């Protein structure tokens, strides 16, 4: 798919960051005509940031009655994942005599697979629960500053965790 580059508007409130690590382990021994194999171990650190999309908060999600306010927030989603180039390191590499070292592109391909695995495991890490708790606390404090006394915050039924 053609990617559109440039500026894009967003309305996300990022409320939780998880810093995670993962060992990238791979063996290149599946191609039948290549003599010898290659093994690699890499370590990587990633930062996952989740929060809520404020553009999905509409007038009908807010009910005000004097000093009482009730809000229905959208569920948390993954806003971004960040793996810095300097946070990926080759820890161990074993290459047979007839094989060449892992190239820069091959290492990036392996790290990209790790990126995908980390992204897919976001839900099981519990980041969305933390993001929703933090969003609820932050908005509660902000509404208190605005002068509301009784604040009730819920999350909508529909779940859409897609980035």
């Amino acid at each position, binding site marked *: 798919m053609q990617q559109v580059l440039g500026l894009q508007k967003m309305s996300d409130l990022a409320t*939780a960051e998880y810093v995670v690590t993962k060992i990238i382990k791979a063996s290149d021994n*599946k191609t039948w005509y290549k003599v010898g194999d290659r093994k690699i171990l890499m370590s990587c650190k990633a930062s996952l940031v989740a929060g809520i999309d404020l553009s999905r908060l509409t007038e009908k999600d807010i009910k005000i009655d004097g000093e009482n306010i009730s809000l229905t927030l959208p569920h948390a989603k993954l806003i971004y994942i960040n793996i810095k180039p300097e946070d990926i390191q080759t820890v161990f590499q074993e290459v047979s005599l007839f094989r060449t070292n892992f190239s820069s592109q091959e290492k990036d391909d*392996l790290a990209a697979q790790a990126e995908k695995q980390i992204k897919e495991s976001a839900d099981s890490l519990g980041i969305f629960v933390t993001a929703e708790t933090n969003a609820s606390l932050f908005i509660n404090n902000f509404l208190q500053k*605005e002068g509301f006394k009784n604040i009730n915050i819920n999350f909508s039924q529909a779940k859409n965790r897609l980035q």
Partner: protein
Amino acid sequence: MAKLFKKIIIAAALIFVIIFLFQKISWLPSFKNIFRSQPVVIDETPIIIKEINTLAQLVTVTFTDEVVMDTAKVGNGMPSLLPLSIGTILTPSVDKLVIIGRGKVIAGTDLKQIKEKDVFVTGDSIHVNLPAAQILQTIVNPSGFETFIEQGSWSEAAATSLKVKIRDKITKQALEQQILKQANDRSLNIIEVFLRNTGFKKIGITISS
């Protein structure tokens, strides 16, 4: 003779059927892919949570860009002959590394910096003093890199250094595109809509310098 020929045909047909079945259940590569390298797939390893941080960042603008960076050094390979008008000279071999990086810059407002004194409320009027927008992250993930040329021997540190330069250039280009001004305008707009939806009629928002 005819019997032997028949046996050979049956044996060949059997071999073809067995090969076909093995290819179907992926025990053998298909004829089309027989000389294609198999992809290297990483193992499923555990993900360890090292830190959990509480944020309150209003992400308002992203800038996506693509940058090409290259580096070169004298290599250890065979020297090459460079033709000149008066003859040829022997030049050392050159190692080249060219990487294309696709990434994004995320800008917005850190709402954690809002203090009690930054919010004034009188009846249905409110004034909020927002902190200035900042670049929250520049992201160039491994899936965003493509090594276009890798000639000679390059260390991991050299490739990482080139990738960091790509990230810095994307940040620089985002700043040249006035990302912070756009992020400030957008933050102002989002907070205004939120305050209006929470019942305020007169809204004043300023951005800290």
